[in-house]
C-alpha cells in the first residue's frame, strides 16, 4: 500500500517572473526550448517517468506564475509537495534577493510536516546569456546562501542550451523521493483516514 502511494512525486518550481521556470520544465520533460512560451497564468504541471533502482516513479512538476501578486494562489498548489525548486536568474540580483521570500512563502503555504528538513534545490538559470558577461550573482554568493539554509544543493543551468538541466532534475527527483519516503513513516494514519473519506464520497451511498 505505501509503496503504491509513493509512485507519485510532487515537485514545485518557484521563482520570480521571467527567470525561466517554464523553460526549465519544458527543457527537462520535452527536451526543447522555445522563445515563445507565454507568461504563466495560474498553474500547470507536466509529468515525467523516472527510474530509481528497479522502481518507476511519476515526477509531477508544477509550474506556477512568478508575479508576486499571484502568490496567494499557492496554497492550492503547494500542498503535498515532496521537493521545492527555487529558481533565480544569474543576471538579475533582484531575482536572487527574492529567494528568501519564495522559500518562506512556500514553507508557510505548503506547511510541510518537517519544515527544517524539507528538501529545496536552488537553480541559477540563464548562464548562457552574453557568455556570462552580464552575470551579476556570483557562484560563490549563491553557494553561501545555500549553505546558510542548511546546505541546499545548487545547480547552474541554461534552459536554452540545456546545460545541467538533466543533472539538476536528477537531484530534485532523488530528494523528492527521499522526503516522500520519510513522510510515509511519519504520518501513515492521517493518510489512511483521508483515503477512506475519499472512498466514501464516490457516490455509492445512494
Amino acid at each position, binding site marked *: 500500500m505505501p509503496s503504491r502511494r509513493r*509512485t507519485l512525486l510532487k515537485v514545485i518550481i518557484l521563482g520570480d517572473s521571467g527567470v525561466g521556470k517554464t523553460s526549465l520544465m519544458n527543457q527537462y520533460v520535452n527536451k526543447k526550448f522555445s522563445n515563445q512560451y507565454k507568461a504563466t*497564468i*495560474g*498553474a500547470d504541471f507536466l509529468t515525467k517517468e523516472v527510474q530509481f533502482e528497479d522502481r518507476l516513479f511519476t515526477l509531477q512538476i508544477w509550474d506556477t506564475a512568478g508575479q508576486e501578486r499571484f502568490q496567494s*494562489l499557492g496554497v492550492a498548489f503547494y500542498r503535498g509537495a515532496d521537493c521545492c525548486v527555487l529558481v533565480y536568474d544569474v543576471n538579475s540580483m533582484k531575482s536572487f534577493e527574492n529567494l528568501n521570500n519564495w522559500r518562506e*512563502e512556500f514553507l508557510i503555504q505548503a506547511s510541510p510536516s518537517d519544515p527544517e528538513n524539507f528538501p529545496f534545490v536552488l537553480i541559477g538559470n540563464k548562464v548562457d546569456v552574453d557568455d556570462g558577461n552580464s552575470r551579476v550573482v556570483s557562484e560563490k554568493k549563491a553557494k553561501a546562501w545555500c549553505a546558510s539554509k542548511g546546505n541546499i544543493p545548487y545547480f547552474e543551468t541554461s534552459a536554452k542550451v540545456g546545460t545541467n538541466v538533466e543533472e539538476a532534475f536528477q537531484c530534485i527527483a532523488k530528494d523528492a523521493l527521499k522526503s516522500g519516503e520519510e513522510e510515509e513513516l511519519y504520518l501513515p494514519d492521517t493518510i489512511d483516514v*483521508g483515503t477512506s473519506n475519499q472512498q466514501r464520497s464516490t457516490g455509492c451511498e445512494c
Partner: protein
Amino acid sequence: MSMEATELQDLSDDADYAASQQQGSASMMRSDSGKRSLQSEHEDAVLIYLKDNVAIHPTQFASERISGRLKLTKQDSVLFLSWIPYKGQTSNAKLSEKDRSLYTITAVPFTEVRSIRRHTPALGWQYVIVVLSSGLAFPPLYFYNGGVREFLAMVKQHVFLARSSEDQNVFIVNDFQSPLQRTLSSLELPSSLPVASGQSVYPLDGGSSSENQRRTSSDVGNRVSSVSQSGFRKQKSHDPTRDLSIHLLEKFSLVTKFARDTTTQLFSENNGFGSIDKRWNNQPVHSYPEKLSNIAEEKHHEIRHSYSENDLLKDDEISYIDVPADPLEFDKLSLMWGKPRQPPMGHKERRNDISPSIKCRISTEYFTALLDSEGRVVESKALRERVFYGGIEHQLRREVWPFLLGYYAYDSTYAEREYLRSVKRMEYATLKQQWQSISPEQAKRFTKYRERKGLIDKDVVRTDRAFEYYEGDDNLHVNSMRDILLTYSFYNFDLGYCQGMSDYLSPILFVMEDESESFWCFVALMERLGPNFNRDQNGMHTQLFALSKLVELLDSPLHNYFKENDCLNYFFCFRWILIQFKREFEYEKTMQLWEVMWTHYLSEHFHLYVCVAVLKRCRSKIMGEQMDFDTLLKFINELSGHIDLDSTVRDAEALCIEAGENGAASIPPGTPPSLPLDDGTLYPQEDDVL
C-alpha cells in the same frame, strides 16, 4: 467608500440595529438553528466575542448595507466565526431577504480560515476580509463602530495568528491540530457529512422531492456560500433551487412541443459540443489512484493526461461510476434557449467579387446606418443585441469596440468623438512623456520603475508572438505594446503592471492599430477588469465565489462533486477568468467572444455563464473519471484550443436565461466586470511592493 453617502449614524436611528435590540439574543439563536449551527449553539459552545453593527455592502452604494452581528464562539477548543445579519425590517427596501441570507456566515471553524486581511484606513470604515483555506474569501466585513484591532486581538488569544512577512495587514491563521484530529472532529458535524447524491438527482419528480431537494442543497451547501435557510423556512419562494425546478417543469412542457418541430434542424446544427457521436464508449475508465499504482498501466495514464482533440469535450456516458444526472437537462435547455448565431455584424454586405478596400467601406456603411445624422448610436441596445448574436466583422471592430468598452459614449456625435480623440491623443503623449523623460541616472535611483519596465519587457516578448501581427524580431507592434503598458502603469500607478494585462492589450492594439486609441480602450477595459489584477486578488476571489454559486444553482450534483473532492476554490478556472478565455481560443475566436461579453447584453457576468457552460459539457467526464484537483486542473488547461465557441456561447446564453434572477442574485454586486466601488482609492496599496 465615500463618506458623504452615509454619515456614521447614531445607532438608535438604525432600523437594523433597533430590530436586533428588540429581538434580543434569544431570537438570534433561533434564527440560527439550522443544521450547521448545532455545533456553534450547542450548550458547550462558549461565546467569546460579540460585535454589533458589523456590515457588508452588497452594492456599491454605501447606504445599501446589511448590518449584522459578528461572533466568535468556542467549542471543543475550536474557535468559530459567525456573522448573522439582523432580522426584521430592512432599512433599505432594495435589499431582499435573499441578499441577507446569501451572505450569512454560519459558524466557520478557524481551522478552515487561512488568513485575515485588515483594512484600517485613516478615513472611512475599517474592515476585514476573511480568506478560507480553500482560497475563497468572504465579502469585506465593515466594522461600523471600529474595533478591528480588538477583534484581531481576541482571535489571537485563541488561535495562532502570524503576521505575513509580505504584508503587515495580513494575518495568517495557523492551526496546530493534526490533520487526523481535524478529520475526526469534522466527522461529528452533521453538515459536513456527504449527503447521498441520489437525493438531488431528480428535482422534477413531484412535489415532495422539491422539499427534499431544498434540504439537500442547504445541507451540502458549501460553507462559504452557506445560505442560512433556516431563518426563512416559510418563504419557499426564496429558495433558488425550488424556483428552478418550477421553472423547469413549465419549460419542459414547452420543450417537448418545441422539440418536435425543430428536431431535424437541431441535429443538423448542433455539430459542436452536443455531438451525438460517442466514440469513447469502449474506453474503460479507471480511477486515478489505481492507475498510478500500477506501472503496467502507464499507457492508460498517458491517455488521461493528453486527451485527443475529439474526445476532450465529449460526454462519454459509459463509466464505472454512476454520474448523477444533470438536473437541468442541459442539452434540451440550450437547444431551446440559445438562439443560433447570426453572421457577424457587417457580414451580409460582404461580397467576394469586390476588393478588400471596398468591402471595408461597405462594412463601415452598415454601421453608419445605425447612427443618426450627427453620428449618435440611436439604439444602443439594438447594437449590443446585434453584436451579442453574432459578433462583428473584423473591419468594423475598430468602429464598434470603443463604444462597447465605454471609451466612446453611445450618444456622442462624430464631432465630439473627433474632439475626444485629439484631446486624448495629447493626454496620452503627456503620460508617455512621464516615463520617457526618465534619464538613465534617474532610473538607477528608481527601482520600482526599473522593475516594472523589466517585467513588461519580459512579457511583451512572450505575448502572441506566433500571431503574425506580433511576429519576428524588432517588431514595432511589440514596442507599441510595451509603451502602452508602461504608460498605463504610470497612469494607474497604484495598480501598476500585472501579468495578463498584455494578453488583454494585444487584440485591442491589433484592432485599433493606433497607440493612443488602444491605450484609452485598454484604460476603459481596465476600469472594469482592473480588480482582476489587484494585489489582494479580491476581484478574482469574488468571481470564483460567484462561479461556485452559479454552479451550485445550475448543477448541484457537480457542485457537490467539487465540494467532496476539495475543488471548491475553482482555481482550475483561474486562467479562464483572469484573462477572459484569451488562452483558450484562437485569436479571432477570442475577439469574437470578447465583443459578445462586452455587450453586457444579457448579463455583465456572461463570462461566468461561459465557465458554467464549459464545465457542464464536461461534467460526466469530470465526475465519471473521478477527477481529483490535479487531474481536473490539467484537464481544464488542456481544453485550451478544443472548445467550440459558437455552441459554448449558445449554452451560456441558455444558462443565463434559465438562471434568471436567481443567477443574478448569486453574483455579489460589485463583482468584476461590474464597475468597482466608487471610493476614490481603487487600488490602495502598501508601499513595499512592485
